[in-house]
């Protein structure tokens, strides 16, 4: 879909039937072992008392944040954010420190704990199928979704679409589009009929998680220079005071000798 400026997903939890076809499609498309999918369907189980039972499932994969925390955290710059949406990971640069996993508020990147040095243990996460979207196709998970719980397109259009669905059926949805502003905006928008916390989505606020960390990082050079100046000043000051003391001690010892001759 080369004509799209900002690719995005819209997931509607009320439409998901928990068939998990997206997981299969993703693993087939991206050639991933079935026990290590890049996408997973999380269910909150049955709620309520019979006959009034509710059930919700959540399709969970990379949120493709506008301000990715994984990208900010990675020491070797293995993450990149493409201008049209996808957050990509370069396995060739990765040193396996797993800081991105700590940084991601959504717990998305995952690691091969069962691979040694020869096989190579890597981080893996959803890529938004760039091999498909660059050729005008939808990502595999979206293409396979039988109920259109997952749709794909221009982010601005999908935000509008999400709000119009809420307006059309205010009794069905929680009045909020998760991802519109969360963590500075994400390319994965979520509509739900149950509270978002029940879907396992964290309350991250609208300010990107990485902001404080980067602001403090910006203080590094000023702190280093300032602290260096303070310590140097201190060292010089102490040395001068000590030298003066020594000179005075010397002076008081040899009182007979005048210390300086006027010229």
């Amino acid at each position, binding site marked *: 879909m080369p004509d799209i400026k900002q690719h995005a997903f819209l997931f509607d939890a009320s439409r998901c039937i928990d068939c998990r076809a997206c997981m299969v499609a993703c693993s087939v498309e991206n050639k991933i072992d079935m026990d290590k999918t890049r996408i997973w369907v999380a269910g909150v189980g049955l709620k309520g008392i019979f006959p009034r039972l509710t059930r919700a499932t959540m399709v969970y994969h990379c949120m493709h944040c506008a301000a990715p925390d994984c990208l*900010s955290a990675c020491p070797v710059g293995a993450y990149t954010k493409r201008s049209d949406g996808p957050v990509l990971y370069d396995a060739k640069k990765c040193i396996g420190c797993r*800081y991105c996993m*700590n940084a991601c508020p959504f717990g998305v990147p995952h690691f091969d704990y069962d691979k040694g040095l020869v096989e190579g243990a890597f981080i893996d996460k959803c890529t938004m199928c760039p091999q498909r979207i660059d050729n005008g196709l939808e990502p595999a998970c979206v293409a396979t979704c039988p109920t259109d719980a997952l749709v794909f397109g221009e982010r601005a259009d999908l935000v509008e679409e999400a709000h119009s669905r809420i307006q059309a059926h205010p009794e069905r949805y929680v009045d909020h589009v998760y991802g519109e502003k969360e963590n500075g905006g994400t390319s994965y928008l979520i509509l739900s009929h149950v509270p978002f916390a029940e879907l396992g989505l964290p309350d991250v606020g609208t300010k990107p998680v*990485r902001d404080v960390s980067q602001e403090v*990082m910006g203080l590094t050079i000023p702190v280093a220079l300032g602290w260096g100046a303070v310590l140097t000043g201190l060292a010089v000051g102490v040395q001068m005071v000590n030298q003066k003391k020594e000179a005075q001690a010397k002076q008081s010892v040899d009182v007979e000798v005048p210390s300086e001759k006027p010229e």
Partner: protein
Amino acid sequence: MKMKIALNPRLRLSPFVLVLLALMGIAFVVSMVRYSIGIGAISNLSNAYPWGFWVSFDLYTGIAISSGAFVITSLVYILELDQFRPLIRPTLLTGFLGYAMEVIALLVDLGHPERIWHYFIYQNFTSFLLAIGLYVMIYAAIMLVEFAPAIFERLKWQKLSALIKRFMKPLVILGAVISTLHQGSLGALLLIQPEKLYPLWWTPILPVLFFISAISIGLAMTILESSLSSRYFKRGLEIHLLEKLARGVPYVLGIYLAVRFGQLLLAGDLKYLFSGGLMSILFWLEIFIGAVLPIVLFSLKRVRQSPKGLLLSSIILLFGMILNRFDVSWFAVRHPDPLTYIPVFMKNVKYIPSLAEISVSIGIFSAGILAFGLAVKYLPVFEDPEKELEQ
């Protein structure tokens, strides 16, 4: 007067050394298993807990207890408190070995230890982990140079030794700056997880708290290490020096407490002090053991002037402050709730370190102790540096 340790060039295998070697052997075998079939085979780390015991113990504790080096060198070279000179070499040695142990531990914990050199070619300067890696390398090098006169004296290269000593002051200032940034960065490393770290710990001034507490840890570690080595190597204890160091501890910890509670007050997080269940208990434990109790103990002249009192008080302080490092990097970090359906790779949401995981850290620690023993045996670590020059 101090007793000189006999320099014995012959290695004797005492039972203690044999135990250390055995522990190192176990760690070696376990890490070979890790390199062949993966981190999951020896540790309980998971996708929900990407960092665990190794990070808390090797990185957070290891770097914290190495802080004696910059504290003592700063006292001697910046404040010109010459009396503390005899403590410099042992603390520098401890600090350097602490950093070296951390790097070795990292080679087990990293998924791709063979790519550690990527730190030099792919650098992302928004990452505190990159900063920490660079600080480790720079400060380890600085400590090695600061310690080098001991090696050169042993080799009788007096000119080289004297040359380094001439540049000691700027070197110490540079080291103190890097060390400050390094200790602070360990706190800043967790700034990226505000929604995961419990509010009693997460604060933008985490780096400041880490730096202040590192000074108290450095003082306590110097006291502990001098006390222990005076027993083990049967040399005189510099109790008058340690007494003076101990006098500084209550002031440092007082500032620490003021900043810590002031921050909680300003951030409006005081409500978590009693309502957080286990988190509140952990908070009060580390505050009481790491700060309040040491302030009381080190304020008592009777405690400061007894070798046993000094040793015990510094152990208490270290225990509390290490608990703080464990809290910040592990215990107080909340991970995603287990959902009803959890994919295979997200299953391990409860984390208890495995025995094999701990054995790696213990093995590396044993290597550090052994290296300290060997260095003391073969290098003039405890000798008066000035005296050595005159010989």
